[in-house]
């Protein structure tokens, strides 16, 4: 297992997609009904492609539709328009029926680590549920916990004895255990302290790439995304305004909104540095 210390620096090479893209969004839109009539278009005509073994960063300010887009990809929302295609299969909205087998390759890590684990079930049971989907993945509960730097005895515990960062790692382990081809991280680091954010983000990247999966990493934090993403999509008010390799976004942003986002990153100003950032 690649340790986090050997995490590759921001990769610029766009991984070559073998033939058709793994995940393809074609002018997808999603609407929410508003109280008192009317509709709000949270996602509006988004077209995106995700190649194999590629990490796509999705950035944008709060409320711009990033999470809705993640839900659309997982089938948790029904698109008002357009299609989502995963590995040749159309992604259908998850109703009350069981999720279609061919779509189980899309797994998600949620934003809130305190809600994403079942408080009344042991960690082992929750990981076993995911392992059952992917018995040939070579994972065991112990190796999964080891991969996310948790002791093996964590398996016997309940989620309340873990901190937020630890819970998020368990959630990552669970998503990984299912053998996903696409791992969607819906702001998985947003509720963690600055110290942990990069660490968890790199861990997700390494684990996803090592297991041959692609990842969509949603964040409002450009600097973390720069660190782990091959390509970055910038979203504003439900639309994708710019998609480019990470370095290009960082060094030569085209869209004014991207420039605004980049300008908003706090800079070290000589008044001291944040611990651990040297």
């Amino acid at each position, binding site marked *: 297992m690649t340790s986090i210390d050997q995490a590759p620096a921001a990769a610029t090479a766009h991984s070559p997609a073998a033939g058709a893209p793994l995940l393809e969004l074609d002018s997808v839109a999603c609407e929410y009904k508003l109280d008192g009539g009317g509709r709000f278009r949270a996602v509006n005509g988004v077209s995106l492609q995700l190649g194999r073994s590629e990490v796509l960063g999705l950035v944008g300010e709060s409320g711009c539709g990033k999470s809705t887009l993640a839900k659309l990809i997982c089938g948790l929302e029904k698109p008002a328009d357009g299609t989502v295609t995963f590995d040749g299969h159309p992604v259908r909205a998850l109703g009350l029926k069981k*999720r279609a087998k061919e779509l*189980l390759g899309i797994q998600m890590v949620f934003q809130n680590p305190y809600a994403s684990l079942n408080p009344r*079930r042991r960690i082992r049971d929750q990981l076993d549920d995911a392992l059952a989907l992917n018995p040939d993945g070579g994972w065991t509960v112990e190796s999964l916990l080891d991969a996310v730097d948790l002791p093996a005895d964590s398996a*016997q515990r309940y989620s309340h004895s873990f901190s937020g960062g630890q819970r998020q790692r368990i959630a990552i382990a669970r998503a990984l255990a299912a053998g996903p081809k696409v791992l969607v991280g819906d702001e998985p680091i947003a509720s963690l302290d600055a110290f942990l954010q990069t660490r968890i983000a790199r861990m997700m990247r390494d684990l996803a790439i090592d297991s041959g999966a692609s990842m969509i990493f949603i964040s409002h934090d450009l600097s*973390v995304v720069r660190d782990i993403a091959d390509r970055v999509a910038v979203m504003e008010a439900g639309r994708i305004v710019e998609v480019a390799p990470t370095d290009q976004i960082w060094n030569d942003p085209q869209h004014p909104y991207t420039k605004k986002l980049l300008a908003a990153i706090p800079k070290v100003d000589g008044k001291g540095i944040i611990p651990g950032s040297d």
Partner: protein
Amino acid sequence: MSIGTPKQPANAPITEAARRDPVDPGLKRWQIRFPKALRTPLGIVGAGILVLWLIAAIFAPLLAPFDALAQNFPRLSAPNGENLLGTDTLGRDVLTRILVAARTTLPAAVFVVICSALLGSVLGAIAGYFGRAVDEIIMRIADLVFAFPTIILAMVIAAALGPGLKNAIIAILLVSWPSYARVTRSLVMTARGSEYVIAGRLLGFSAGRSLAREIAPNVISPVVVLATLDVGSAILTMAGLSFLSLGAVPPTPDWGAMISEGVSQFAAWWIAFFPGLCILTIVMAFNFIGDSLRDTLDPHTAQEVGETTS
């Protein structure tokens, strides 16, 4: 709005591991919690009374001094050396009849509560999970039952089915399930939107598996508490039906029926007083246990209980 957090290196020291809990207190959650629930003062009293009653009910044939149906004694004699709690209008020993009646009342009450808790929570869980039309149909039926006072509706049903213990149980079952349905429905509705349930659905859980595996463990403790508290009211309702001659058929001994008989013999206070005392103690015991369980199973109060008792 803040965009961007200063970049952190990946080789930051792992301080989080140091903060890890030493031993997981939740490791044996169920094994520890139930006895602990009875460690509150009221819980101990309740459990004590209940154990006494269980012993009395189990060993009633050995403990009872006489035959419950034999009319061997002077009618309406006050408590004395031979008939410790006196005799009734037909010259039967009150103590004997109380002990024998416990053998039908207690199992019947527990049985009816378990059945209505099961029925109500399954229906409530289905309503809460599937929503829409299913929810509307189940909950409107529940509202219909709620619209009548419990004892009145139970009376109507028992009267329609005819007197008898079995029919009284059916009547109580039919009027008591909606409260479980309501509680379970709201808990399931909250749980089904939570991320751990969605994560389970993303792993391909069916609705049934999602309900049984992910949601049930999180909603079961309030239902258990409600059921414990409900045993008392089930006993009361059953006694009420017997009082109205809609429960156990004479000459079968029954607490409610004994009180009913005592009402017409007001001077012979012992006929109604002692069965009434029995109902009081047993209802109190179940309420104490229920309160105690509620306090220990509710995360908000569990900590206080833990601090005061351990």
